[in-house]
């Protein structure tokens, strides 16, 4: 590998755009170009970002200069593209969820093993500064043994990407959105989930989609119980909210992104609440590396350069996917589901 790491991004949606901005801030990384299914949209998007528009995926896979393929396309395409890129000898970072079935997740993990290339699933929550602080406090045993965890993640339907509403493409809110907290709590627990009981329902007032609110209960092997609520069905005026509470033998840790924030901006048209991590980070101007996406992709770059395993590799991410799929199954059959799931 040359000194510089060359990256190609798949997907020109919200996440593709966010990742490209973050890649461009990382020293020693060059975004060579982007590919998406609609070439005219790809060209327009590429022009905005000042990068090249690739007319086909194969041109990226055949380009020997490209080291990393970053997959930010809709979820149902993740496994197929990841397998192709790994087979072509590229390091792969793929948005969460890595796949919509365990079979596809295993196919991806197998391709990574066989190729020897790095595979990371982008569980960005682990790189949010407040969640990082929670993890550190747990490691410092500030609240002793954690007995109960509860998380909330929700807001209005992500209308900018209508494919989320199609459960076949996104997995629905229980897979797409709850997986953030599932991954974080599983990471904190350092135990394995044994049993999942969930209800996934449709908000009768919502015209968005099926399966737009999920309530998920998880029992872990060490006795920890977790409750996760994930929603795409809150009213349009409801701000995107993340909450976490950990109840331990020696105290409680909590966070809530709607508690008072460092900067609130009010103008004639709107108001904005800024936590530093919600603003784009400009190196040199803002000294504190705020952007969780920057940190996430930097972690992947470090792993490539040092030949280390990413924190959220295929196997780690598969565990979270399995819990989310168990939640869907539990909701369908109306009973708790024991893990592991059959493939």
């Amino acid at each position, binding site marked *: 590998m040359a000194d510089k790491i060359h990256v190609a991004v798949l997907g020109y949606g919200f996440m593709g755009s966010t990742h490209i901005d973050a890649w461009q801030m990382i020293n020693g990384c060059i975004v060579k170009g982007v590919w998406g299914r609609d070439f005219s949209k790809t060209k327009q998007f590429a022009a905005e970002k000042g990068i090249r528009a690739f007319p086909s995926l194969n041109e990226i896979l055949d380009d020997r200069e490209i080291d990393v393929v970053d997959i930010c396309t809709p979820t149902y395409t993740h496994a197929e593209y990841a397998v192709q890129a790994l087979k072509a000898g590229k390091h792969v970072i793929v948005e969460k969820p890595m796949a919509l079935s365990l079979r596809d997740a295993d196919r991806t993990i197998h391709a990574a093993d066989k190729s020897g290339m790095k595979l990371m699933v982008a569980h960005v929550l682990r790189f949010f*500064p*407040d969640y*990082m*602080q*929670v993890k550190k*406090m747990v490691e410092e045993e*500030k*609240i002793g043994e954690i007995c109960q965890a509860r998380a909330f993640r929700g807001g209005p339907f992500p209308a900018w990407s209508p494919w989320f509403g199609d459960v076949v493409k996104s997995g629905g809110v229980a897979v797409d959105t709850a997986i953030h907290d599932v991954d974080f709590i599983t990471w904190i627990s350092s135990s394995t989930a044994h049993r999942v009981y969930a209800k996934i329902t449709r908000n009768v007032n919502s015209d968005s989609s099926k399966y737009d609110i999920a309530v998920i209960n998880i029992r872990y092997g060490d006795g920890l119980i977790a409750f996760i609520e994930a929603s795409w069905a809150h009213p349009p005026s409801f701000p995107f909210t993340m909450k976490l509470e950990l109840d331990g*033998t*020696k*105290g*409680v*840790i*909590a*966070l*809530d992104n709607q*508690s*008072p*924030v*460092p*900067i*609130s*901006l*009010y*103008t*004639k048209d709107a108001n904005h609440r*800024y*936590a*530093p991590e919600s*603003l784009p980070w400009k190196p040199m*101007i*803002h*000294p*504190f590396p*705020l952007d969780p996406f920057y940190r996430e992709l930097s972690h992947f770059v470090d792993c490539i350069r040092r030949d280390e395993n990413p924190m959220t590799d295929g196997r780690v991410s598969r565990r979270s996917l399995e819990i989310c799929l168990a939640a869907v199954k539990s909701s369908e059959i109306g009973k708790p589901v024991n893990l592991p799931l059959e493939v």
Partner: protein
Amino acid sequence: MNATFRVGFLGVAHFHAESYAKALKKIPGCEIVGVYEEDTALGKRFGEEFKIECYRSISELLDKNLDAVIITSENSKHHEHIVQALDNDLHILCEKPMTINIRDAEDVVSRVSKKGVKFQMCYVMRYHTVSILVKELIDSGILGKPILMVGTNKLNRALPLLRNWFTNLSLSGGGAVMDHTVHLADLMRWYTEDEVVEVYTEIGKNVNKAISVEDNFFTTVRFGSGLIGHIDGSWTYASGFYTWGDVTMEIIGTDGAILMDAFRQNVYLIGDKHPGDRLSWSYYGCDPDLEMVRDFKRCIQEDKPPRATAKDGLEGVRISLASYESSKRGEPVQLHQL
């Protein structure tokens, strides 16, 4: 500059010395060479904590082929320490307030201008990510023309008692007004790129009757442009409050408003020792002390002007002293009258 950035501490009476020393330890290519501190017990403790030599005289320390000094002595000693460092052609990072009277402050500005060294004030909020972002928002014009800035930089009342000199007039030059006017005054000057022309201050009766310097005040300032600022830097927060203090500012413009609460970057932590155990904050935010020290080194290395200079130090001193004068007279003070 030496291959390694060699720094000495001239006085460590201010707690911030520890924070700057920790910052130096985190920045590659820095060496803390030693410390001079008149209070030998304090100097020895500091030397042991950071595993550095504690010198018995200033000249002994300044003899050690230093690049720079950090001056964190008592306020009243800053001027003397600045002069000695300048005489040795050393770069200076100076704790606020720069001096405790205007004559000394003007003398520093004049001496620095005659030397080829960097002089940087510890106006740490110019290095805080949140206040930098607010500056960018203001500069972007999103608020239209700013007309009012109301700030608090309040402190837990127990903190100034941890080092006796803070409440000793001859060493500190004053209480809360001297200690906590300058951060907000400087932020407002930085945001407006304008100077204060008029100051009015009310000093209240002390919450802590055991100290002889003032511990609370309200200062109203008027800038050349007509913009109004309000500063509350009181030492009145009580123990049990969630954190050490705050830096907040409400900024009203013709087209919008910003509420800044710079240290609101926290996870909640609640212990279980007693049913009444209170919520505390666990801070995960940016480290402005680190960024300030990092920038000090960078400005020297790249020969760039510091973000906060001796002139900014002088203006801070001017505003604090005008506050005392206004409080004494019971009327607004025009700055050019002093």
